[in-house]
């Protein structure tokens, strides 16, 4: 038995771990207390990483669907050759746009896959690329596309006086808001330390979450009205003149108009709709505005709710009007270690509105961060049209479970001429595929943290080699994409180099090239077994460049103004109405991890406030039927006194598609597209959904 040091790649937190390896199997994983980033922290998913690799559901060879519907093993390189040929054929017949790709979270935690797959895709020349981002956190992209970005950097958590967390439970999700990296690393101890040095914490969440338990002020609203709450906070800040005039004058347009737009969101109105006592909202807004340092960050609770784009926009407006960004001359924040050290400037990068420029789909969707909204994928496949998607490559995702309206997705996938899933297990999506490519998994490959740096709170980097051998029938994801490119005659250019398509480089070489322009040489990082904490950057936020100095953040462009008006006018919940909210289980990362032993109860219970259970005459552990306007599921009821009355909480990404499956309920059955679907990213409402609840027979 040997001990190996590495880091977990199930989520962005990249926790350092020590693994006990025996007979090429990871028998135990313990957090690495000497890792300067995670300091020993791991979550239940991470500790079961060994099970993920060696569990019974792990695919150890690639598969090809046979005429009778069964799967037979296939060499992955042979599969790549066949798939490449078929893709070439389909593209020859129907054009490049008839090929699509869906990327999942798992692709993000593997630094080589993303770049090689992207280079191949560029050669394919199709716009039809989708990812889970647009059913998750893409509201943040929309905000930046409509408001623009301040390029001096956000204020950090480490020296903040106050922090507001909305719709996120980082002590469980290990994620205090995408792109923040707030409370992502060793979250509980970090929060404890921050509170000990005096940080005031404001939490907005309909459940008294693990994080809310630590809060100085916990606003516990009726779910689904985040836009109104943020508007209410802005209204207090702007009408009481608590905002940072200097920052606004210099960098923002539309402060007055914004003040007018949120004027109707009085504390009384917020109280009437969300149940947050007016006094508490005032207290929270004033505490936040007093600062002087600290930000609002939001999580899935906001990004998946009704009016998510507006809610996110208004949350960002709070940060802007309070000027919670680094000014010229302040120390620049940048965790860059392996990344090149780019200067931070006190300037605004103007709104890009990428979706209004350039290519548009026949359904009117534009490109957002290079992607199309996932919620248009089914239409792209099913609706007749010249550029209908006929072939789809799914890389590290399970869209059948992750997207609303699974029935339609199933129909769409069934109608494809070619479906390829790259997946470590026979997921619901993979089961439908013509080819399932079994990739290597983390711990079986070397990697480094370069692509994760943007979420690290410190200049940290780690490189790891493989700690176990991959099963012989698997292939590195990047190598599969490389092979596709080779077969399809597509040249690959990564890290500024044209690859020799007849002699693929090794993973080590590719990793080296990727980190080639870093602030700290890879060799130095690799020599630090527990990861390296680099010396802080000396750089200061530089003055605006000439080209950018006149740009300003657009707080309230026309479309946003209209959406704000609509969101603020939404009525509250009816008497006794119940609403669905999302909940994170520590053991589950999106659709990954449902099969772990010993996690949770092995099913996905519906949690209710005990008062609601009494009112509805529902007994603990009894079956209840939850019906939304989109569908209906049966779940086991559990009392949870930490919930706000009126909420039903379930975990997303759970359950099979079979409503009777022992793995329990898939919440997506309850969600779908309707009048509340967002513009730009076509994001449906996934939380705050009104539900009818009855006892099941």
């Amino acid at each position, binding site marked *: 038995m040997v001990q190996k040091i590495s880091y977990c790649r199930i989520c962005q937190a990249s926790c350092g771990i*020590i693994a006990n390896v025996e007979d090429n199997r990871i028998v135990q994983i313990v957090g690495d*207390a000497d890792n300067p980033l995670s*300091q020993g922290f*791991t*979550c239940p998913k991470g500790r079961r990483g060994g099970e993920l690799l060696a569990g019974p559901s792990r695919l150890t060879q690639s598969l090809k669907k046979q005429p009778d519907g069964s799967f037979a093993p296939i060499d992955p390189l042979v599969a790549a050759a066949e798939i490449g040929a078929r893709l070439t054929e389909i593209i020859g017949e129907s054009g490049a746009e008839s090929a699509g790709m869906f990327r999942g979270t798992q692709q993000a935690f593997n630094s080589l896959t993303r770049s090689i797959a992207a280079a191949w895709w560029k050669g394919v020349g199709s716009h039809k690329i989708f990812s889970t981002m647009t059913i998750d956190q893409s509201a943040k992209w929309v905000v930046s596309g409509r408001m623009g970005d301040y390029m001096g950097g956000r204020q950090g958590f480490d020296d903040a006086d106050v922090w507001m967390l909305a719709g996120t439970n980082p*002590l469980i999700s290990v994620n205090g808001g995408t792109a923040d990296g707030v409370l992502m690393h060793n*979250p509980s*101890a970090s929060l404890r330390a921050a509170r000990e040095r005096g940080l005031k914490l404001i939490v907005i969440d309909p459940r008294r979450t*693990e994080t809310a338990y630590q809060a100085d002020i916990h606003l516990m609203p009726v779910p689904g009205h985040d836009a109104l709450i943020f508007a209410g906070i802005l209204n207090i800040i702007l009408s009481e003149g608590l905002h940072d005039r200097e920052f606004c004058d210099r960098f923002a347009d539309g402060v007055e108009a914004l003040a007018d737009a949120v004027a109707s969101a009085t504390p009384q109105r917020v109280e009437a709709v969300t149940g947050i006592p007016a006094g508490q909202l005032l207290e929270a807004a004033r505490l936040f505005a007093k600062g002087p340092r600290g930000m609002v960050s939001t999580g899935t609770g906001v990004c998946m709710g009704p009016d998510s784009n507006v809610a996110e926009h208004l949350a960002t407006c709070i940060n802007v009007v309070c000027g919670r960004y680094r000014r010229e001359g302040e120390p620049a924040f940048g965790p860059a270690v392996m990344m090149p050290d780019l200067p931070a400037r006190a300037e605004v990068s103007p709104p890009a509105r990428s979706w209004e420029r350039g290519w548009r789909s026949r359904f009117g969707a534009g490109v957002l961060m290079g992607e199309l909204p996932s919620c248009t994928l089914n239409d792209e496949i099913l609706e007749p049209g010249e550029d209908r998607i006929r072939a789809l490559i799914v890389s590290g995702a399970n869209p059948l479970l992750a997207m609303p309206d699974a029935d339609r997705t199933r129909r769409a996938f069934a109608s494809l001429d070619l479906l390829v899933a790259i997946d470590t297990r026979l997921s619901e999506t993979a089961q439908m595929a013509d080819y399932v490519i079994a990739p290597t998994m983390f711990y079986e490959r070397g990697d480094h943290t370069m692509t994760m740096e943007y979420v690290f709170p410190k200049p940290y980097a780690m490189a790891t080699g493989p700690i176990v051998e991959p099963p012989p029938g698997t292939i590195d994801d990047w190598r599969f994409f490389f092979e596709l490119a080779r077969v399809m005659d597509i040249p690959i250019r990564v890290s500024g180099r044209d690859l020799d398509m007849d002699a693929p480089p090794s993973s080590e070489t590719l990793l080296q090239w990727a980190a080639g322009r870093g602030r700290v040489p890879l060799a130095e990082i690799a020599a630090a077994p527990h990861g390296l904490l680099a010396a802080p950057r000396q750089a200061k936020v530089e003055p605006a460049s000439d080209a950018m100095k006149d740009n300003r953040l657009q707080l309230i462009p026309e479309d946003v103004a209209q959406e704000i008006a609509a969101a603020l006018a939404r009525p509250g919940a009816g008497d006794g109405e119940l609403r669905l909210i999302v909940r994170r289980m520590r053991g589950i990362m999106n659709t990954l991890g449902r099969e772990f032993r010993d996690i949770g109860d092995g099913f996905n219970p519906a949690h209710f406030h005990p008062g609601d259970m009494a009112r509805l005459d529902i*007994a603990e552990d009894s079956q209840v039927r939850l019906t939304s306007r989109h569908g209906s599921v049966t779940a086991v009821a559990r009392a949870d006194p930490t919930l706000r009355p009126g909420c039903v909480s379930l975990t997303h990404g759970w359950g099979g598609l079979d409503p009777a499956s022992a793995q329990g309920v898939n919440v997506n059955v309850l969600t779908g597209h309707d009048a509340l679907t967002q513009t730009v990213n076509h994001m449906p409402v996934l939380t705050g959904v009104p539900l009818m609840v009855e006892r099941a027979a």
Partner: protein
Amino acid sequence: MTYVITQSCCVDAACVPVCPVDCIHPTTDEGDFAKVEMLYIDPVACVDCGACAEACPVDAIVPDHGLTEEDRCFADFANAYYAETGRAPRRPVLMAGRPERADAPELRVAIVGTGPSACYAALDLLERRDVRAEIIMIERLPAFGGLVRYGVAPDHQRTKRAADAFQRQLARGGVRFLFNMEIGRDISVAELHAHFHAIIYAVGAPGGRNLGIAGEDLPGVLSASRFVGWYNGHPDHAGLAPDLSGRRAVIVGNGNVALDVARILLGSEADLATSDIAAPARAALAGSAIEEVVILGRRGPAQTAGTASELSALARMEDIDIIVDAPPALLDQDASGSFAERLKRSLLADMARRPLRGHRKRLVFRYFRAPLAIEGDGHTERLLLSRTDDADAAPEALDCGLVISSIGYRGAALEGLPYDEARGIYPNEGGRILPGTYATGWIKRGPSGVIGSNRRCAAETVDALIADFGAGRLPAPSGDDAAFAALAGARRSDHFGLDGWERIDRHERANATSPAQVRAKLTSIAELVAVAKG
């Protein structure tokens, strides 16, 4: 947030090696670990990863925000512990490594009993890399778990989960079971030995120690082992029908078992709602006339044998009065002894200061008293007491209808094995009775220690066994699996394996009388066997 260890901790130290920051103490090599009552998490160093909570077999570890009102005191205990002991420097995480041997020889072992020590011995054997252990566990009762099922108090459900954890782990390891088969009655010791390289006796200590005083055989005098067996639905004691018609019950001895018994006697029906107390006991206790329970200690309050966490369980009972027959100041001022001892004294001092509220039921701790004789006309009417701190004092009479002696458990002899009459154990050296014959648990070291204490105890025994095997001292058995199965079948047709126990387990859970209750126990051999046989 931080994690907190609570009442059910059974000191098996399973949480210690999984803690990445080494913040759970004392560890097995700190201080006198054998005497430790529970472990404590350092709330400052803990990074809240929850690894310990997953490793804990009895769900003792909970995040602080999940603490119930009653369990809040455990966070205070932890603070007090670290305030006092300070913080040891972190040791590097070193996971236990064992030698590997691919061509490990097969070792056939029978383990007698399915209590904690038997389970730990089996798990330890399964983890060895130097042998391939083929294990069968033989249990005289048609039920799994030994004292976890039949000793641990029915309102300590988290502790009882230790049995679930054992069962899960053993099932995964492929251990076989033979329930309802008694060694010494159905199969002799010699017969057993003919079929295995080695036998580990983990038979526990089934009886109670006698008081050795006049009147002990009067109706109304019971050993705690029987009374505990009764409320836990032990088939041997299910028909006990103790006399609960008197106003006062006296418990002789103040260890944890005595505290369990007092809690059960004084508890309300609501206190037992979630318990798996045997149905006849539940009914009898509901009609009990007992209003006062006196716990007698031979020595002073500082020497109370029960643990702080069990004392705090009594202290949290809201609807009883508690009288501690000792000046609180005396308890407070005494600064001697270990952390746990001082913690205990401060809990007793708090209880002593608690104002009397005129509740119907009360608990009285009395000290420096020893029982002299039990008197009564055909049944127990009074207990005569002497003072241990004053030899000249006149005996004192205490009227009572029930006397429960809780002065320790005692092992029983088994034909074909040596027996140490004085200590009530099988004489052994580090678990070795003879090469090929081993003991572990209470029958090895005497009736003390909690569930987790048996872990190291079993490891020591298995070490001795493996050493004998390695040295060639364990001849190959003459009978194989088939021969043993034939023998077992010839002796009894109503034995069964793990599947049978799983049927019982499911049946009992399914028949719980309320959603809050874990299970409704079957209490007769006939019923258990019938369900097991499906």
